[in-house]
């Protein structure tokens, strides 16, 4: 039972970290609860479909279907996170000011909510399909299934609790800083996802250039440990990154900050500021 709990917990916290950060990043935006719920619900539904068709997906594209699928999901999530950060760079300060003034939620954030709901949905879909497959395996094998199933469900509950912890931990950050902190977290999250995506393309046999390992820090922090996995999700920690992964990681961070900078210094933003 404990084994099942740990396996499921490990998968759930990876999605949970992302959900927690997204929730903190949308703090004070009206309607975000609904959007995040839609994201989670859509993700769970999608995860069940992906689990159901795991065999079909896997065999597609000369056996590289699963890798291409994962790379696409991660790629889409990276784009959504970029969009969100660019949008926040432009509007984040207004939202923070508004929150300080009225102390309640503001309604301007309709745009990034769709992007972040998609990110939540994709994260839940990716990790969730593994949980569904695992639980399916338990039920299919029959023997001692019920104890394992209880373990699995407890794992989901523990993972949800971890998500709440992430969220409330981030909420402890003062209003003034919260959007810059979440922007940083999202930038690192996106860079890590992009590096993971390019490795999936490598596993698919598509992007095989620059595939030499740059360093090996498995002695310091193994990705097999819980902390290693959390860092993997959070900042894209990889114990043996390839040259390509490292380049993509840095390029994504660079692109992210460039985009945020461009968004921040838009003329639209300057005019009302000058009029004050």
């Amino acid at each position, binding site marked *: 039972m404990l*084994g099942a709990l740990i*396996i499921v917990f490990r998968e759930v916290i990876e999605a949970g970290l992302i959900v927690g950060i997204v929730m903190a990043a949308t703090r004070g935006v009206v309607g975000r609860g609904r959007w995040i719920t839609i994201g989670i619900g859509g993700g769970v539904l999608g995860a069940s479909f992906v689990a159901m068709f*795991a*065999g079909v997906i*896997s*065999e*597609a*594209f*000369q*056996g*590289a279907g*699963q*890798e291409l699928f994962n790379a696409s999901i991660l790629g889409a999530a990276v784009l959504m996170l970029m969009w969100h950060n660019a949008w926040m760079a432009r509007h984040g300060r207004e939202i923070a000011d508004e929150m300080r003034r009225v102390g309640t939620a503001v309604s301007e954030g309709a745009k990034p909510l769709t992007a972040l709901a998609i990110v939540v949905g994709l994260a839940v879909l990716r990790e969730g*399909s*593994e949980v569904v*497959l*695992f639980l*399916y*395996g*338990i039920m*299919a*094998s029959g023997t001692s299934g019920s104890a394992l199933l209880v373990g699995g469900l407890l794992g989901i509950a523990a993972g949800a609790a971890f998500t709440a912890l992430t969220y409330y931990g981030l909420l402890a950050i003062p209003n003034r800083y919260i959007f810059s902190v979440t922007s940083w977290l999202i930038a690192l999250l996106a860079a890590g996802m992009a590096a993971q995506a390019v*490795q999936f393309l*490598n*596993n*698919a*046999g598509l992007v*095989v250039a620059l*595939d*030499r*390992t740059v360093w090996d820090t*498995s002695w310091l922090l*193994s*990705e*097999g440990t819980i902390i*290693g996995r959390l860092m993997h999700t959070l900042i894209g920690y*990889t*114990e*043996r990154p*390839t040259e390509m992964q490292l380049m993509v990681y840095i390029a994504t961070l660079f692109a992210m900050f460039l985009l945020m900078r461009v968004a921040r210094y838009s003329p639209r933003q300057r005019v009302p500021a000058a009029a004050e």
Partner: protein
Amino acid sequence: MRVVLIAFGIVGLLTVGAATARADDYVLTIKEHRFTPAEIKVPANQRVMITVVNEDATPEEFESSPMKVEKVIAGKSKGVVRIGPLKPGRYPFIGEYNEATAKGVVVAE
């Protein structure tokens, strides 16, 4: 119409894929949540394809962070795992859903 064409395209790709898939030198079989062979030797510094055959009815996830691979293999099916180039050394892997019994190691030399 376009949807139909795309569907045909995908089916076509799959068929070609199935027809051209070559036999692999390296095969790992999962049975009763164990890998056979539990140790597999591959040449170092080159890309290698390993076919993982899952003879169990339940799905398994072939995972190895040292080799940067994670791949779900559905029950009663098989999947291709592409790894490398690996520096000489030992690279452990596990079946994530049955970690207690499903373990093995790739030895690159």
